[in-house]
């Protein structure tokens, strides 16, 4: 059996960041993920905010890592080729109570080291963003927007490019410790992994893994929220995230946020769920988003809806239900060679790299591994065809003619880009995986034009049967077989209409 130095459990944004930071050392690292791609859980099911850090308790890990993660993100985005905009944020209020809360969190933010926050009047709100609601606002210049899925993919790609191995469809079912051999055996339905170190980055399931490692099964509570995704046509009306004043505990209800790709997200609302993967959207909550979202964003119209989704923040709570800080721990005496990360939720995307550095530091302190002199922090990220000038597009097609074939019309994604995505460094082959790497099918027709082409390219590029194409999960087959009596001939299949 192969011997690993470190097994990271979970390929969300934190697991991928940990993998990337581990790659800075000469270590044999495996990442085990139960899904078929990175960021299938809550790492991608969020607003995509780079948080400033003004709502977290001073001195907490959340506050410390958010401010640190925020400050460094321009460099991180440049290294990893991740689209990112430091848009700033408007926290808008309507009432005196809103103003009280805004001032309270402004003070907390200042204590946390958040710079440049200021209270502005309605006139300035309208000058910054004419489509924002609110009678006054706090302007937070350091907030920004990013695509959390693209960011996680970039972290994982960069880790893989520096030697980390990712294993998908590997749900951890048990962990055994072999004291004599100073190692752990991590069991999955597809075989066991032997490793010296284990780092728990299991997100929603972190408490279960925590218990398998010998730490407590920390109580967590799921706060679910639903979102609408609005058409890029609506994107013209909003250039900066607009949040309502926080409630007394620092929580935000439904807000409107532009995405880095030019869409608008409206949501999330917040309600408690018991189900680990309760990602369904519900009529009542979507109706609520329409009602509450209109207060933040005056152009909230049904004609702009292209999709909806849900995410769950699994927060660590005490016996009285109070939300607790992120947990990052290690215990060489009782659970040697482990790092345990539990209750990592919002602002987990902002905090991923700072948390990863702190987790890896625990290992480095004990293990003192050799530094990987070959580590390259830069991930090659070719410019999207969509973002190129006409001249750049012409040059790209001249170089590689497949850039000339537009596969996804809505998002202008070319055959060259789809092919590259199918051959991604992580070996992800789902239709959703191609979508998340290219934006194909993410536009207003939702794959009506390009999905048939993408599934066909996956089959051809990988030499697999149509029945083996997967939409997102392991059991998400898209085709049940050939049409009755169908011939394999492509010409017959193409319904030729020429004479």
């Amino acid at each position, binding site marked *: 059996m192969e011997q690993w130095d470190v097994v990271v459990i979970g390929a969300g944004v934190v697991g991928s960041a940990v993998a990337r930071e581990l790659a800075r050392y000469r270590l044999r690292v495996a990442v085990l993920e139960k899904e078929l791609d990175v960021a299938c859980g809550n790492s991608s099911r969020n607003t995509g905010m780079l948080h400033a850090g003004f709502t977290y308790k001073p001195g907490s890990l959340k506050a410390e890592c958010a401010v640190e993660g925020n400050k460094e993100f321009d460099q991180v985005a440049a290294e990893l080729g991740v689209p990112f905009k430091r848009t700033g944020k408007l926290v808008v209020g309507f009432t005196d109570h809103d103003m009280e809360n805004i001032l309270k969190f402004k003070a907390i933010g200042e204590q946390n080291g958040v710079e440049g926050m200021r209270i502005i009047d309605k006139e300035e709100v309208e000058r910054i963003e004419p489509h924002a609601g609110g009678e006054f606002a706090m302007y937070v210049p350091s907030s920004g927007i990013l695509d959390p899925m693209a960011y996680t993919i970039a972290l994982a790609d960069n880790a893989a490019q520096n030697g980390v191995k990712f294993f998908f469809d590997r749900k951890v079912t048990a962990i055994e410790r072999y004291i004599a051999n100073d190692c752990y055996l991590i069991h999955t339905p597809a075989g066991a992994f032997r490793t010296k170190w284990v780092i728990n980055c299991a997100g929603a399931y972190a408490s279960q893994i925590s218990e398998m490692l010998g730490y407590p099964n920390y109580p967590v509570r799921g706060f679910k929220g639903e979102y*609408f*995704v609005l058409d890029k046509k609506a994107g013209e009306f909003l250039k900066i995230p607009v949040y309502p004043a926080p409630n007394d505990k620092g929580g935000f209800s439904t807000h409107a946020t532009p995405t880095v790709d030019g869409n608008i997200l409206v949501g999330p609302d917040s309600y408690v769920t018991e189900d680990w*993967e309760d*990602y*369904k*959207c519900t*009529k009542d909550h*979507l109706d609520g988003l329409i009602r509450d979202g209109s207060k933040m964003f005056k152009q909230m119209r*049904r004609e702009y*809806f*292209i*999709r*909806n*989704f849900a995410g769950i923040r699994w927060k660590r709570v005490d016996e009285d239900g109070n939300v607790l800080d992120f947990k990052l721990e290690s215990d060489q005496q009782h659970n040697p060679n482990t790092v345990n990360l539990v209750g990592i939720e919002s602002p987990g995307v902002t905090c991923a790299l700072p948390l990863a550095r702190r987790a890896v530091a625990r290992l480095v302190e004990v293990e003192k591994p050799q530094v990987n002199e070959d580590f390259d922090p830069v991930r090659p990220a070719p410019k999207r065809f969509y973002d190129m000038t*006409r001249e750049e*597009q012409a040059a790209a*097609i001249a170089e590689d*003619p*497949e*850039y*000339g*074939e*537009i596969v996804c*019309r*809505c998002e202008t994604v070319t*055959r060259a880009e789809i092919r590259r995505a199918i051959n991604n460094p992580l070996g992800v082959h789902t239709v959703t995986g191609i979508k998340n790497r290219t934006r194909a099918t993410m536009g*207003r*027709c*939702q*794959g*009506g*034009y390009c999905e*048939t082409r993408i*599934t*066909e390219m996956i089959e051809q590029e990988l030499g697999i049967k*149509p029945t083996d194409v*997967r*939409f*997102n*999960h*392991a*059991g*998400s*087959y*898209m*085709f*049940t077989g*050939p*049409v*009755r009596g*169908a*011939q394999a001939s492509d010409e*017959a*299949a*193409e*319904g*030729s*209409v*020429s*004479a």
Partner: protein
Amino acid sequence: MKHVDAVIVGGGPAGLAAAIELRRKGIDDILILEREKKPGGILRQCIHDGFGLTRFGETLSGPEYAARFVREAEALDIPCLTDTTVLEITPDRHVYASSSEHGMMEFEAGAIILAMGCRERTRGAISIPGTRPAGVYTAGVAQAYINLKNKMVGRRVVILGSGDIGMIMARRMTLEGAKVLGVFEVQPYASGLPRNVEQCLNDYGIPLSLSHTVTDIRGTDRLESVVISQVDDHMQPIPGTEQEYECDTLILSVGLIPENELTWMAGAEKDPGTSGAAVDENYQTTVPGIFAAGNVLHVHDLVDFVSLEAEALADGAARFIREGALPACNLAVRGNELVGGLTPSRISGTGDVTVSFRVRRPLRNCTVELMQGDTVVKRRRMPKALPAEMIQIKLKADDLNQTDDLEVKVTC
């Protein structure tokens, strides 16, 4: 950059018919740009018959219908660049298009014919609640997989929406051995053609349930079931009427939307009634020299009418190419509350015009009056009018004045 007298965006039925008619009117320099690998548009995947009764007086399959136009265009030597996607149209009629074979292309067009057709409304657009498993397809995507790619998308099927493609897919999947549990329509009437209710559903014993919709989608990997609820007069689900249907496939046939991204890029104004471009009696958009016809303008029931409309467009486009301008159309066209999807939106009063619209709900014994001021230009009595059937009324220039707006009144 190359000058072309007429650039036609889209080689489906509208684009092909416009090209052929323009050539017949003496326009030699024509170029069709088609994103698919062959011309024919959506007809390539419509292997059922019923096309051509109006245009050719016989019933053809979609590919057969398209082949007649493709052959004619080939016989007339009209060039068509396939595998070519138009990226941008500018208000001064420059067209940018790309293909693997020819790279980035720029054309300066004497006139541009928009013939991009339409796309399907999606699950997200109508906000169906539930999970997001595999097995939820729009009818057109399922049709493309089955008819063009020979891939079967499922075995146990529920269809939401009684649009024509949905009903045709109900029959198609039944013929392929799938079990179609039913077609559910949120409106109190079928949204597709009566002949399709007969031939695609009734003939195969597939139940059609009106005033019903999908209120939940269940399953994590592949679709496991959908929940269907009855809806009230305001199309809101009625609690207590939920019924769960075990199925692996949900087909959506919930409406078509004209594909107008390039139209808006070119600066053309929208007609709020059709969601397509506002056009005048010559099918000219608000941008001079840019014309639109077929499903990109307003969604038709039958391809025959798409072809006829595109042929009608050629007259104005040819005049524009020759003369550089068309007579001003200063008279508005308006409909009353029973009239939807009305085109054109402006007329001159000096030319023949075809007025197209749909009634907003099924009507019996109604009267259609086209009026200028107090003058009834044309009156038609209809024993029955359905939203699924587009009404077209031709007016002669001689019958029109040049001062009054045109009002379309439907009364019951």
